[in-house]
């Protein structure tokens, strides 16, 4: 193993490959920042440029872009409430809140450090646990995927804010959105009302851009017209050492969650970031700070989403099964170079495999420097007057919504979701559960029905398979625990109030 890694380093430390990492990371950050361009589009756009490169350099370039893009998505999420990638949705909640409190530098720093560590830890997972993790991922059948979806959805209790009913309703509305389009099992169109644009369903990214970015523009519009809006004081302060230390355990936990979830094909960064966020909120001593700019609320999803990079490469390299859309494109790129991913790749092309491992480490470290270099520049964007920033966010949102399927119809969709998001926000209907429903809806429905097809309608299939049962138990605990904790806190507050009232009477 050590010999192979040294061999990988030897291959990486050539000018061409080092340059490939630098270009990949920088392009990745840029691709991640721009709404509508995610890691998968970025990698797909770069593949044609790799035809003339040797296989190791090609893979190094693509992997570096993948790493950079997962981090880049958080930048626009923090600065303008527009998640550049689907994996950065959870980052919006606390990242944007911390920015609104005047600390964009701290939010960007927390995201960068978490992404870096998440990437490094997942690379370690990739190096040492490729084979066992790949076989663990293969144990997931439809019942396990359904239970994983339910486990993800159970997070809704901690994302609901003041009203659990409102949070649950929003999650169900999100789930309903995913039922639009051709039914995944029978192929029957549902809720399309004769529009061919809806046959593929409501695309996730335009809906997301609408609910977060366009709704935010409406809010800016309202604020600017009040003429009372005070220019937000922006502190360029970065994270202190004490603050970094405080998020270390969060980053470690998020990285492990991301690495594990990343290995499960189809789960991906969009699911991992929510699981990590919820986990952290439950473990936190101050869960009330979540949603108001908690550093842990940024560190958890960011470490998790970058950790899925290494995780997603596990089944790709060990079994030839792509774990995410981006790795599916990378699989295509590998095949273009005549390489067949799978256990034999480690034997036949150790140069490609081990140089990739080493380059992932290097890409994460380089990302830290490139990210730090640009932090002040990103903060400068916020000093633009609200009257300029608002229209630019809208114009960017139009591109983001359009780019997914090249349809103006999607821009209208984003606009509609923007209006909904704006109204929901005003009346304290939390948006995060709706997004969660949209992320998990397809996974839940398709696998519920596949499982019931397998069992001929017998629901016991979910409780007789150990992994599925474990996930359902975890889901129940995840759902009930925050409710119990909230109830307990309420009771304690009531008690204290009663004691105070009694004392006052005496």
């Amino acid at each position, binding site marked *: 193993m050590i010999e192979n890694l040294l061999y990988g380093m030897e291959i990486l430390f050539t000018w061409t490959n080092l340059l490939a990492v630098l270009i990949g990371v920088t392009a990745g950050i840029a691709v991640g920042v721009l709404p509508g361009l995610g890691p998968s589009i970025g990698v797909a756009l770069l593949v044609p440029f790799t035809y003339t490169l040797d296989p190791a350099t090609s893979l190094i370039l693509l992997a570096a872009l993948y790493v950079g893009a997962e981090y880049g998505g958080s930048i626009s999420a923090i600065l303008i409430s527009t998640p550049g990638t689907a994996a950065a949705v959870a980052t919006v909640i606390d990242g944007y809140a911390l920015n609104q409190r005047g600390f964009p530098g701290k939010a960007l720093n927390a995201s960068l450090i978490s992404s870096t560590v998440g990437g490094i830890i997942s690379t370690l997972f990739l190096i040492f646990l490729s084979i066992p993790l790949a076989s663990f991922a293969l144990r997931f059948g439809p019942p396990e995927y359904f239970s994983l979806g339910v486990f993800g959805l159970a997070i809704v209790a901690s994302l609901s804010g003041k009203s659990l009913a409102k949070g649950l309703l929003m999650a169900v509305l999100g789930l*309903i959105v995913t039922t639009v389009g051709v039914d995944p099992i*029978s192929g029957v169109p549902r809720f399309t009302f004769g529009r061919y644009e809806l046959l593929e369903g409501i695309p996730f990214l335009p809906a997301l851009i609408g609910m977060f970015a366009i709704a935010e523009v409406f809010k800016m519009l309202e604020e600017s017209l009040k003429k009372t809006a005070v220019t937000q004081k922006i502190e360029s302060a970065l994270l202190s050492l004490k603050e970094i230390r405080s998020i270390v355990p969060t980053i470690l936990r998020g990285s492990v969650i991301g690495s594990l979830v990343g290995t499960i094909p189809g789960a991906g960064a969009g699911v991992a970031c929510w699981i990590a966020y919820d986990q952290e909120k439950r473990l936190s001593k101050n869960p009330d700070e979540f949603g108001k700019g908690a550093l842990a609320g940024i560190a958890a999803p960011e470490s998790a989403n970058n950790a899925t990079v290494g995780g997603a490469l596990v089944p790709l390299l060990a079994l030839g099964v792509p774990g995410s859309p981006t790795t599916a494109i990378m699989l295509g790129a590998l095949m273009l170079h005549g390489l067949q991913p799978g256990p034999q790749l480690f034997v036949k092309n150790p140069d490609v495999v081990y140089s990739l491992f080493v380059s992932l480490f290097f890409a994460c470290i380089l990302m830290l420097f490139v990210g730090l270099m640009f932090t002040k520049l990103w903060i400068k964007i916020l000093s633009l*007057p609200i009257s300029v920033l*608002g229209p630019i966010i809208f114009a960017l949102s*139009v591109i983001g919504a359009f780019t997914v399927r090249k349809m*103006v119809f999607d821009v209208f969709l984003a606009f509609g979701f923007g209006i909904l998001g704006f109204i929901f926000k005003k009346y304290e209907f939390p948006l995060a559960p709706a997004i969660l429903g949209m992320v998990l809806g397809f996974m839940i429905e398709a696998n519920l029905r596949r499982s019931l097809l397998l069992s001929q309608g017998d629901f016991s299939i979910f409780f007789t398979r150990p992994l599925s049962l474990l996930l359902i138990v975890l889901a129940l605990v995840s759902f009930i625990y925050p409710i119990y904790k909230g109830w307990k806190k309420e009771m304690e507050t009531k008690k204290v109030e009663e004691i105070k009232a009694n004392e006052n009477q005496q």
Partner: protein
Amino acid sequence: MKKGTIIIALLSIMTSVFLYFYTLKLPMPTSPNVPGPAYVPKLYLTLAVVLAATIIISNWISRLPDKDVNWERSPFVIMGIALMLLSVFFINLLGYFIVTFIFIIGMVLLMGGKLTHAFGASFLFLTFIYLVFVKLFHLPLPKGTFF
């Protein structure tokens, strides 16, 4: 009583009921033991009705007003929203670049910005978008009928 919250919950119920009736038109499953295409939507829609009804009842009982919801300046917001909607409508006709150029200028002025800022922002933003999306990535942006 939280009027806005109740209206949203009522609208959710109405939409869910409408969609529920739509699911009745969907084909039945081939085997009685296997769920058909209407199974999951019906489940979600029923849940939505129950939850929205719970919200209405609990708000009806609490009789507290919605907090910090201010629509006083809504005519101005509606003007801005109309401008955004118009810009999306005209994209198919005039293309992204022309529409966005006009939109940014109009919106900056509406939001109280200066004319110089409006032109500067519009020009710089579109130049950046043209270089990155069209020249570098060769990604198509909405084209109009005329341009």
